[in-house]
């Protein structure tokens, strides 16, 4: 049984989540906390295998809690559970050392899988979050880069093209038209002074936008 700590200031949600987790059969909620401090306290008491923590809680917020838990138990798999769907939160969470990130909205579909995944030692992130991380690391935090002049969507399209996705596929994944993708592509080539998709791929690899 995977022992899980659930921390969320909303009782209804907590209850809902607990039910989802427990119905999986191999996961057991060992502690439920309604705020950050309680979460830290209970975690120290019950020693869970995985901590599922809401990012926005009164008192200590989720990231703070994660930091304290990781300080107490380095390597503890933590999943951030949040209302926020903005990728910036994911990045912050990953920076804080968490292994998974699940929005509350997708919890019924993803939380169990996420718990099992992080318990198994792997990360659990959404495709968007992964991409965001890749883009962020490619740009770096300091220093000038040719990528600086690119917008998020441009970076996304660049990355997808470098990964060998077709215009169609890209259009589908970002809910934009194929024509728009094509416009992005030609603009990218112009901005980065490249000639074709092959050069785009080479450029993306150079900049660590994708793994070779």
């Amino acid at each position, binding site marked *: 049984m995977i022992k899980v700590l659930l921390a969320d200031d909303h009782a209804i949600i907590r209850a809902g989540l607990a039910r989802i987790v427990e119905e999986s059969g191999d996961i057991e909620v060992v502690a439920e906390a309604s705020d950050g401090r309680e979460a830290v306290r209970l975690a120290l008491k019950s020693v869970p295998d995985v901590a599922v923590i809401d990012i926005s809680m009164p008192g200590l917020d989720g990231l703070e809690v994660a930091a304290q838990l990781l300080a107490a138990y380095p390597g503890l798999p933590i999943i951030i559970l949040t209302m926020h769907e903005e990728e910036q939160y994911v990045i912050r969470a990953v920076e804080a050392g968490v292994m998974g990130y699940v929005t509350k909205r997708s919890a019924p579909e993803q939380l169990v899988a996420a718990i099992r995944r992080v318990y198994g030692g792997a990360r659990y992130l959404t495709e968007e979050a992964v991409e965001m991380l890749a883009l962020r690391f490619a740009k770096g935090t300091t220093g000038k880069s040719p990528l600086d002049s690119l917008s*998020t969507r441009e970076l996304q399209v660049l990355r997808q093209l470098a990964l060998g996705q077709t215009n169609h596929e890209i259009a589908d994944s970002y809910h934009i038209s194929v024509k728009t993708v094509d416009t992005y592509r030609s603009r990218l080539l112009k901005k980065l002074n490249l000639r074709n998709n092959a050069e785009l791929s080479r450029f993306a690899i150079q900049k660590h936008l994708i793994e070779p």
Partner: protein
Amino acid sequence: MKLRLIFLVLSLLAFLSAATGGYLYYASLKTAAFKEAQHQAIVRVEVIQKNLSTFLAENVRPVRTLAGMRPLAEYLARKEGAALGQVNLLLDNFKNALQVDVCYLMNYDGVTVASSNRGEPDSFVSENFAFRPYFQGAVDGFPTTYLALGTTSGKRGVYCSYPVFAELDDRPLGVVVIKTSLEEIEKKLGQSRDEIVVVVDPHGLIFIASQREWLFQLLWQPSERDQRGLVDSRQFGPGPWSWTGLVRDGEHYARDKVGKRYFVNQLEIDGFPGWQVVHLRSLQAIYKVVLDPLVRVTVPTVITLCFLVAFAVFFLYRKASVEIVQRKKAESALRESEERYRSIYHNTPAMLHSINLSGCLVSVSDHWLEVLGYTRNEVVGAPLVDFLTPASRVYAREEVLPEFFRTGSCKDISYQYVRKDGTVMDVLLSAIGDRDPDGVIVRSLAVSIDISARKAAEEALQQAQAKLSLYARDLEDQVKKRTADLQRLSGRIMAGQEKERAAIARGLHDELGQVLTALRLETVWLAERMAPLDGKASARAAMMSSLIDETIDEVRSIALRLRPGILDDLGLLAALEWSAADFERRVGIICAFKAEGEIPDLSNVLATAAYRITQEALTNVVRHAGADQVTMSLLFADSWLSVTVEDDGCGFRPERLSGAAGLGVAGMRERAALIGGTLEIFSQPGRGTRVVFRAPFIWDDKA
């Protein structure tokens, strides 16, 4: 008037000199002509005398020849009848040959014994002419020529006698005579009334004359002795002889009865002692002869000369009078203008004065005196600086006067005059230099304008201005204070608004969102649970779940619009990064975001301001720019935060901003100003727009 007199005198002098010159010319010509005439007269008398002498001596030789004829001597010696015939023949021959009046022979007693005119009525044969000097001379052995009046013929003649000698005897037998008439020679003397030639005997009786009426008159006033001598001589009839009336007048002149004057020349005839040729030339005639051509020559010359002189004088006089008239006109115009100038100078209500090179007043206008209270005597000749205040005096001496005499003008010099009563008067002085023909400044013409009133007004104005500026400053301070108050208020309102928004957003997002999320959890669970039992109910639940999803999206979007939680949770950088991506996603305009520099934790107010400004800028891009691409950048350097939103849109003229966009920009500015920052907008039509917000990082966050 003077000039006219001078001209008159000059013209008179010119005329006089011309006349004198003409007269002298005339006189010298006259003298020369007169001398010439005299000379001619002398020459003429010499010629006449010579001719006369020749004429008188003409028969001397023939009579000797005749006397030598033998028949004559024989006849006189023998007194035979036969011989007389020969004698007469001889006498006739001689008379005819010589063409003389008569030839005759007288015996020793003086009786005419033979004559060529023996048969004629005036024959004087057998008459005795022993009284005749020619007979007496010849009888004495001397051939004689004599002039006398014939006793029988009454004709004047030249008697040439020669003694007839017998052979070998030196006592004359008789005398032979040839008489020639004087008529011929008289004819040769000429008939001119202006030239009278007479031959007078030693007594002064005119025997030969060019004028008949003069004959047998005494040329000069005769004495008793002359009359008697003439009678005694018996040569010219019995007399008496009248006097011509001619009187001597000096050595060479004479005057007749009627006062007519003559030039007299006389010469004795050779061989006729006492006989003289007298030449009388009428002075009047001489003058006439001399003067006529002279007058003919000189008068036109002199008249022409006089005329020319007169013309020249007239011309010059006209010229001069025209000039005089012009000069007079000019003078009167000058006088008038001077008077007008003087009148203007004194009557214009302006302070006028002139100074000379040494800075002393040479003239002042009445108004000058009136205003300063001096009399003209006190002022003229005194240095101008005496009427200035000490400060003005120094200014005048050291700056104004040297500069004025150098340049010749000065303008609006601020002086202070001292009135006679000691009060001070402010003036503005302007002057120009009066130059002599060489361009050297000799005096000034200056006008002073009383600006006491102006100065007082200026001072009053200055005071008023000072007061006003005090008020203005006060007002400004008040406005500043009020503005600060308002700003504070505005800031507080904004902060309150933000807080409220944040609260609502959080409420919506966290509370409502959580509830909806919980609902979704339940419906999803329900849907899953019901799936094997009741497909319909399960589908219903799934539908509910998707409805809840939509609602969650709605709520999220409202909350985000009110205030994104990311700004509070993750800070400005993350918020802007998200905002850029979100903008791109929503609007479809490419929006790149870049951050430079280590961004520290910012105060809430600063972050909020920066975020709201970028949102407003992005809204403007969507509404107005028509851009393809937007770049948003965040820079932190030297404690200053700057956020730039730049688009490649159509741009605009920032100074012409108005309406809603203007309000929006004003709002951005206010937000910037509230935190001590600035907002600048760079834009040009067709060149895109750049909105730059800058704010100091150090910010006392009171709100």
